[in-house]
Structure formats: C-alpha cells, structure tokens
C-alpha cells in the first residue's frame, strides 16, 4: 500500500531541535513499514559529484561579518546618482539603470570615489539604514505594489515588467553543487520559514503564478518542506554538479528548455525581508572555503565588501602561495584583494597555487586525490580530498578516453568542438553545438591530457559571436 500525498503543513517534526509546526511531509507513505518514502530525485545525464573537499564550509552556521570599512559597488552600466562627498545611508539609491533594479549603498558613509566601473563608499561607522514600510499583510497588496517594493529594495524580480496575458513561471534554484559554495544551502537550512514566505511574496508580485523549487533531496530543508499549497511544486534533485546552472536546472525540472525566471535562495529571502521587514537587499551570504583557509565558514557580508576584508585573519599563514578564486573552483575567476563581493558571487575559495615538485607522482596511492576516474584510493575510501590549482600531469595529445563526453551536462562532444574552435572551423563547431556550452568547466576538469577544453570552447563561441 503505497499511499497518497499528505497535505498538512509546511514543516515536519524535526527531532534535532528544529521548529515543530505540524507534521506534513513530501513523498509517499508506506503503511507496511510505517515509513515515508521520499520522492525519487530528478537528475540529468553527465555531471559529476565532487567528493568531500578539505576546508569545505558545508554545514557551518552563518556568521555576520562586521560592517566593512569601505564598499565598492560595481555600476554594471548604471549611471551614478550621487556625487563625491555625498553622505549616504545603507539602502540609499546611488545609481540608476534603465532595466535593472537601482544600485543601493550597502553601508552608511561618504562617497569617496566614482569612476566608470564602480562607486566607492567609505564607512562612517554609524551604520544607519534606510527603512521601508513593512507589509506584514502583503497578501492584500496587488502585484504592482509588491513589485514596486521589491524594485526599491533591489530584488531582481522588482524590475520585471509583467505583460498582459504573458504566462511566466518562477523557478527557485535551491541546490548548490560547486565545490566550496555552500552559502545558499546553509541559508536555506537556517531560514526555511522565511524562504517559504518569500515564495509567497514573489508569487504575489508576479500575479499568483505557480512556483517551482528545485532542491537538494538530501538536504534537511527538503525533508522539512511541506507541500500543502497547490501553487508550490517541489522538485527533489540529486546534488550533482552542475545542477545549479539554469540551463541544466530548467531541463531537469521541466524536461525541456522553457521560458522561466530563475532565482536563487538569497533572492527569495531578500524578497521576504524587503516586503515583510522593510529591509533593502544589501547583504548576502557568501561561503569562504579552501585548504588555505584557517576558518572555513559562511558569512553574511554587505554587498560590495572587498575580498581582502573577508579574508583578513582567516588564512593559514603558510609559506605556500595561494590563489583566491571568486565564485566556485569550476566557474570562478582569479580574484585580487580589492575585488568586491557582488550579488552574483556565491563564495570565495582559496587554494594552494604551488609549483612544488612531487617525486614519482604516478605512484601516489592517492588517499586525498579528487578524481573522476577511480584510479586512486580516495574513490574507494571516500576520504577527504585536497584541492589545489595543480594540473596533476603534463599537457598531452588527446587519447580519446571519452571522459569529457561522459561528463558533459549538455551532451555535446567537448573535444571535437574544442578542436574545431582551435582550428577556426566555426561552422563545424556550431553544428556540433558550440553555443550550447554552459561553461561548467567539467571537460577541462576531467581531461587526463590536461587540455584547456573549456577555454578553447569559450574562445570558439566568442569568435562565432564576433562573426
């Protein structure tokens, strides 16, 4: 007797100190074993689940970083509305763009510098906030009013112009899979109730549309999240990289590519805070991880905080040189200390960047090696893995092992496309789907010949666009 869905309440009883609010759950109930079977998680072909990396901020409670001394707010094409010397409060508009939400100051202080790229604000140490009016009964407000509030607070949906008769869907990305990125996962665990209210706010703001949530089926949040609302569709997902890239997420959830708005957990929580608490979206949870970090964790930081300020006092003082990566290890970019943390940044990873030599590396039993193949002991021991920028081998000709084709999440043939791109055969590269590449970086990661496939494909795509 595999039974029916129980629609009861948001939250299941949590044994370990969690909030008790009813007993509703997702899944089917087996009367024989008196146990609940969770719905089978959806996934996609290809991809790779990274092992347990050393220095991961997974499960670390969110800490609030002290108000930074200065913030750098990138303009991203917006025009600044403040002048040098202006006093601003946290949440005040400092820039306007045509299509996007306004730029907000994330601290109170003085505008110290403005250039083509960014606005720099020096803190006055007072941390005064602009507060908006609170709408605790937001259900009575119309979509237009809600969008107005979200727009003012700098939440992504606020700038969305709803057209008459346009059918839109909202998809929430609640599965974070890249190594060392845990901010969204942790925030979801800690603020599940706010998350659900945030969903209601967003739904209201977009005209009572259905909301889809793609969520890691292993997370506690998924087990606690009920499904008592007919507009809320929860899709349990395998936490396999790159499940959180929108193209892959949409295909996994809907089975095909559709027009849909994708928001991450922070966007939903920001919508809740903007409408219910009257708080502008000027903070963000980022994770800090990596073997070179002495204290990995998740931090609530003001948007625009420099990476240097986040890293201060949190690095190992080892003699080994390290590399700071903004974003994940697969898709991130090399960062410098003055780079700001922006709205699209999930975390900072700091890994060793050593050129130290290792004698007979091929004979290494590999207890700490991260590898797609199972050629190392770590594959059988399930031990913690070390991350560094080492290539672990020399660049060689392709031996056609087929790993890149196996892992490609969009099912194209990376090695062939990379070759065509390298030789300027863009027509052929296009035929094989060069434009579908989502830059997940897995083909470069797995390649035993250490070919820079992702980079070559990116180059091909860039050349194709230029034509």
């Amino acid at each position: 007797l595999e039974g029916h869905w129980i629609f009861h309440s948001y939250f299941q009883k949590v044994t370990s100190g969690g909030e008790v609010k009813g007993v509703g759950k997702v899944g089917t109930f087996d009367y024989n074993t008196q146990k609940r079977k969770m719905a089978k998680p959806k996934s996609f072909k290809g991809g790779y689940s990274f092992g347990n990396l050393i220095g991961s901020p997974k499960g670390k409670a969110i800490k609030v970083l002290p108000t930074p001394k200065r913030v750098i707010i990138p303009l991203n094409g917006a025009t600044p509305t403040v002048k040098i010397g202006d006093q601003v409060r946290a949440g005040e508009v400092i820039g306007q763009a045509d299509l996007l939400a306004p730029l907000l100051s994330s601290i109170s202080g003085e505008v110290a510098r403005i250039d083509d790229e960014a606005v720099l604000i020096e803190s006055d140490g007072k941390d005064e906030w602009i507060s908006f009016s609170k709408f605790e009964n937001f259900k009575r407000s119309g979509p237009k009013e809600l969008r107005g509030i979200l727009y003012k607070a700098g939440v992504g949906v606020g700038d969305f112009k709803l057209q008459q008769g346009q059918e839109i869907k909202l998809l929430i990305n609640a599965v974070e899979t890249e190594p060392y990125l845990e901010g969204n996962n942790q925030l979801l665990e800690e603020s599940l109730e706010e998350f659900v209210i945030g969903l209601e706010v967003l739904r209201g703001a977009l005209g009572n549309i259905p909301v889809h949530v793609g969520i890691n089926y292993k997370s506690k949040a998924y087990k606690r999240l009920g499904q008592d609302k007919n507009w809320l569709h929860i899709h349990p997902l395998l936490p396999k990289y790159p499940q959180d890239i929108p193209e892959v997420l949409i295909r996994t959830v809907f089975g095909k590519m559709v027009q849909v708005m994708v928001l991450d957990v922070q966007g939903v929580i920001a919508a809740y805070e903007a409408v219910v608490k009257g708080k502008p979206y000027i903070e963000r949870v980022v994770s800090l991880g990596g073997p070179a970090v002495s204290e990995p964790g998740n931090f609530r930081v003001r948007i625009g905080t420099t990476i240097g300020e986040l890293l201060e006092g949190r690095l190992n003082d080892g003699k080994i040189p390290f590399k700071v990566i903004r974003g994940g290890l697969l898709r991130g970019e090399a960062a410098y200390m003055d780079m700001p943390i922006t709205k699209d940044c999930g975390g900072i990873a700091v890994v060793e960047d050593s050129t130290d030599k290792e004698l007979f590396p091929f004979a290494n039993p590999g207890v700490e090696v991260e590898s797609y193949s199972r050629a190392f002991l770590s594959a059988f021991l399930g031990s913690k893995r070390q991350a560094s920028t080492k290539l672990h081998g020399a660049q060689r000709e392709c031996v056609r092992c087929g790993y890149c084709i196996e892992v490609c999440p969009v099912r194209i043939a990376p090695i062939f496309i990379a070759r065509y791109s390298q030789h300027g055969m863009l027509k052929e590269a296009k035929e094989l789907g060069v434009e579908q590449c989502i830059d997940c970086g897995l083909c470069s990661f797995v390649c035993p010949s250490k070919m820079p496939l992702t980079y070559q494909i990116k180059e091909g795509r860039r050349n194709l666009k230029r034509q």
Partner: protein
Amino acid sequence: VIKSKLESLVEELYKRSEGRERVKVLVEGLDGFLFGNSAATAQAAPWLRDGLGMQRYMILPIVALLPAALASVYFFGWRAVAIILICYLTGGLVELGFSYVRKEEISEGLLVTGILFPLTLPPTIPLWMAALGMAVGVAIGKEIFGGTGHNIFNPALVGRAFLLVAFPTEMTTKWMIPLQGGKGFFTYSPPPEAITQATPLMAMKFDSIPTPWTDLFWGRVSGSLGETSAFLLILGGLFLIATKGIDWRIPFSFIATVGLLSWVIFANPLFHLLAGGVLLGAFFMATDPVTSPIFCKGRWIFGVMIGILTVLIRAFTGYVEGVMFAILIGNMFTPLIDNLTMPKGSKIK
C-alpha cells in the same frame, strides 16, 4: 634527500641543455618521469583539475596486465621477462629517436604497448624478432601518424601483424606446453621437447580435439605469453573497468557477440571465449582509447562488429585466430563510427 638531489640534477641538466632544443626534450622527458610535470598549474577556469594525469592513466593497463605477465613467467620461464624487457628497450629507443627529431616530449603511450605487444607473442619467439616487431609497431603503427593520439591502428597489433606475415613459421607453429607447479620461476626457458605443441584453437580446428574449459580458465594450455590464463585476464579487465581505465561497453559487447555467434556456428561458446586471444583482445586491445570509438553508441557498434569478424575469421578462413585482424579492421572503421554517432547540437534533450 633523494628528491632534492634529483631535483637539483634535473635543474642542472636543464641549464646544460639551454639552447639545444633536442636535448632539452630528453631532459623534459626525464623530468616528467621523475616529477610528472607537477609544476604546471591551472591558468584559467576551472581552477581545480582531476588528479588523474596521462602517466597514471597509462599505468592502469600495466597494473591490470601484471598478473598475466607473472603467469607467463610461471608457465614459460624467465625468458618471458627478457622478451618484455627487450620490447620496452626497443620501443623506448624508437620513441627517443622520433622525439629527438620532432622536438616533442616522449608520450606515455609506449608504457602500454611495451607490455601488451610481448604478451601476444609465442614464448619461443627469438628475441631479435620481438624487438623488430616492437620497432615496427611503434614506428609504423604509431609514430608516423604523429605519435600517441593520432594513430589509426593499435601499435601492438600492427607489430604482431607484421611478424605474422613476415615470419609465419615462428609465429604460428612453435608453441610450448606450459610448465606447471612453479617450475617456471626456476627456469629460463622450457626444455626443447616441450616445443611444437598445437594451441587449443588449432587442435579444435584441425583435429577437432576440444580442450577442457578448466584448463583454458586457469591457463594450463599452450599459446601466446599472456593469453593462456583466462582467469587472470578477466581479473585484470575487471580492475580496469573498476578504475575507469576502460569503458565496459566494448569488452561486454565483444565477448557477448563472440559467445552468441560461436554458439550458433560451433555450438561451443565457452571454448571460443576462453581459447585464443578473445579475452586479451576484449579487455586490453579493443579498448585502446586512441583506436576505438569515443561515443557510447559507437562503442557498442565497434564491439559487436569485431565480435562478428572474430568468429567469421575463426570459422571460415584459413587462419586459426581472428581477434587480431578483427580489431585491426575495427580500428579502420573507428573514424567512420565516430562521425556517424557524433552528437549534434540540435539533438540534445
């Protein structure tokens, strides 16, 4: 201590080879052997790279072949090791020559060919003949196409095909009764009276004498150095599949096709699976990544194709064994199969 001494030695060699590019290539080869070029770091995203490099990837088949290589000593004496060593030596010299001329580093592909090729030879093969076969295999089978990654045919099989055509007597008539009970570890080579024993496939084809499958399974039969014990070959093959050194699809489809077809044609599938080179070919030859299809669908086609060819050659031609020719013919089809099974951008779900 050893590490730092070797490091300074390599640095010294680098300094001395300054300006002489051809010599520098050799030093780089030594550096790569000792330190695996671990100095290189990622310059662009992704910043994290897989721990598996080409050296480790190419060592996997050697580890998988070690049991079979040890068994060849057990059955045929220490001469088996001499044959393997001379093959590595010749292959290494040929590679060195090509890398010196081409100013390119020596590639790791030789590691596999150097052990795979001798294991396909009869135990009585003269050493010079083994060396010649290896030289032909590496030079004509691989290097003239541009080195590892560019070759069309499996180099080990090219060498063997050359020897089979050039020296048919040595390659097909001089077999040996295997030694038993560990005697092989105390002899260089079996006594002369052990020579000229027909292989199980020959006995079956010409005299219709079947060999018990237990003998074939454990290896108490005459044959090439590495193909006698089915058990050890399966063990090595499973190791390769478990470590992702090879894809399971090719050996599976190859073995299944041979079993099915020989059941139809000879009504004796087990004998045809265990006798001869089917297992060695299925796990170690047909799966050579460079010369076999790269897409899953293509690997199925490839396995079935060489399976059919193997049984057809065994059943209807003058040759007793068909695995080698079947795989070589399959190699020719690899580019075509790849083209036909190439995923197109529009087909993605």
